[in-house]
């Protein structure tokens, strides 16, 4: 029986590859947009505008304090109630982008605050505008602290993308769930699902570790 299930599983491999593409599409899109929004929010979070700082901080807290599954349900089930009809895919991308933006915002804000205040003062004294300070002094130095946890966050987000299978996005996890109804060998089916996630996540984890080592070395050289 085991051999039969195994060959069945091999035959449904194209289905799994399709699911893998869906996972890559959902998380890739959300990561790109989330990084852009996260950087903007992170810069705003460290700005002098108190209201802005407070608003972003409160929003980030709300998102960090609730499970992603609940957020996905809220986007998918509640937005139609206020007139925004969404398919599962855009709903998933919106929810994941927002989650990514919130986590990246915290990382970026932390990185900016870690740049010593003397640098900012020196930049002001040299007559650089606020934009020039950010572009040439603050961000290049902050990136050193931001990059390793940013890549680490990407791993978490790729994994979080599995949750969107709950609203019917046919990603790897959903494919596994559908397959296991037909091939009742959970270990085999979800072992394969695990391997597919591992293929994406493990190199990213290693990249994050390498960046961390490199950046620490670079910082001590400075």
């Amino acid at each position, binding site marked *: 029986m085991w051999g039969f299930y195994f060959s069945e599983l091999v035959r449904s491999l194209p289905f799994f590859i399709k699911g893998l593409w869906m996972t890559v599409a959902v998380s890739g899109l959300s990561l790109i947009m989330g990084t852009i929004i996260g950087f903007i929010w992170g810069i705003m979070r460290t700005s002098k505008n108190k209201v802005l700082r407070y608003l972003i901080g409160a929003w980030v*807290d*709300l998102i*960090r*304090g*609730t*499970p*992603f*599954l*609940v*957020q996905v*349900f*809220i986007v998918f*089930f*509640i937005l139609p*109630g*206020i007139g925004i009809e969404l398919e599962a895919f855009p709903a998933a991308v919106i929810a994941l982008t927002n989650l990514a933006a919130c986590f990246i915002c915290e990382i970026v804000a932390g990185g900016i605050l870690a740049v010593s205040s003397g640098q900012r003062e020196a930049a002001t004294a040299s007559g650089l505008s606020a934009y020039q300070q950010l572009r040439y002094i603050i961000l290049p130095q902050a990136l050193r602290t931001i990059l390793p946890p940013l890549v680490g966050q990407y*791993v978490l987000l*790729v*994994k*979080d*993308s*599995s*949750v969107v*299978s*709950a609203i019917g996005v046919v990603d*790897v*996890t959903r494919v*596994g*769930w559908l397959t*296991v109804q037909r091939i*009742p*060998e*959970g*270990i085999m*089916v*979800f*072992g394969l*699902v*695990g391997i597919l*996630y*591992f293929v994406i*996540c*493990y190199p990213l*984890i290693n990249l994050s570790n390498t960046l961390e080592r490199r950046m620490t070395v670079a910082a001590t050289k400075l």
Partner: protein
Amino acid sequence: MLETFNFRVILEYMPLYMQCFAATLWLSAVSLIGALSVGIIACAMRLSAFRVVSSISGVYIESIRSTPLLAQLYFFYFGLPSLGIMLPEWVTGVFALTLNSGAYYAEIVRSGIQAIPNGQIEAGIASGLNYFQRMRYIILPQALGMTIRPMLGQAIVLVKDSSLLSLISIMELTRAGQLLTSDRFMPAEGFLTTAAFYLIIYYMLKGFSSWSEKRLIFREAH
């Protein structure tokens, strides 16, 4: 949306929510205790001088960290029965949560232990302290102080992750929201109430985290 927001229904479902709130709390608490124990054991194994022991723990930690919790949950939920092991859903859920968070706790504990400079351990050996005395009086007090924040952070993640248990039909907070959605078709009332309950836990843990930073005095190494 707010005009039609039905507080009466929420009140009507409040007993269910309280019951589910309690369920989320104890499911998380049991998993947290389990995860801490698994984490400490896995970390001790990871730091072991025996190659085999340390690589077993390494494989466990890496494979958990590179795959999503939902895939792990389905792995056990669909996989254990095919091995002939029949467990109630909540046991499977707690088991998966425990193993998942255990891997993260192992990494947190390890980073805490490895942050202690080698000289202190050598000094401990030179003063004639045995392994357990070194652990008890030198390493653990410092490591705990350094890791209390990431540990509470992981506890927050664990509580949020417990929402995935609703997908294998365990009664907890997210499931209550799903019930309200399917019984009355009131997703806004259902999921926003669910989110509010999670926020209560989040703010409590977050408050405890900043309190512990101020109040719990762990002497730093000089």
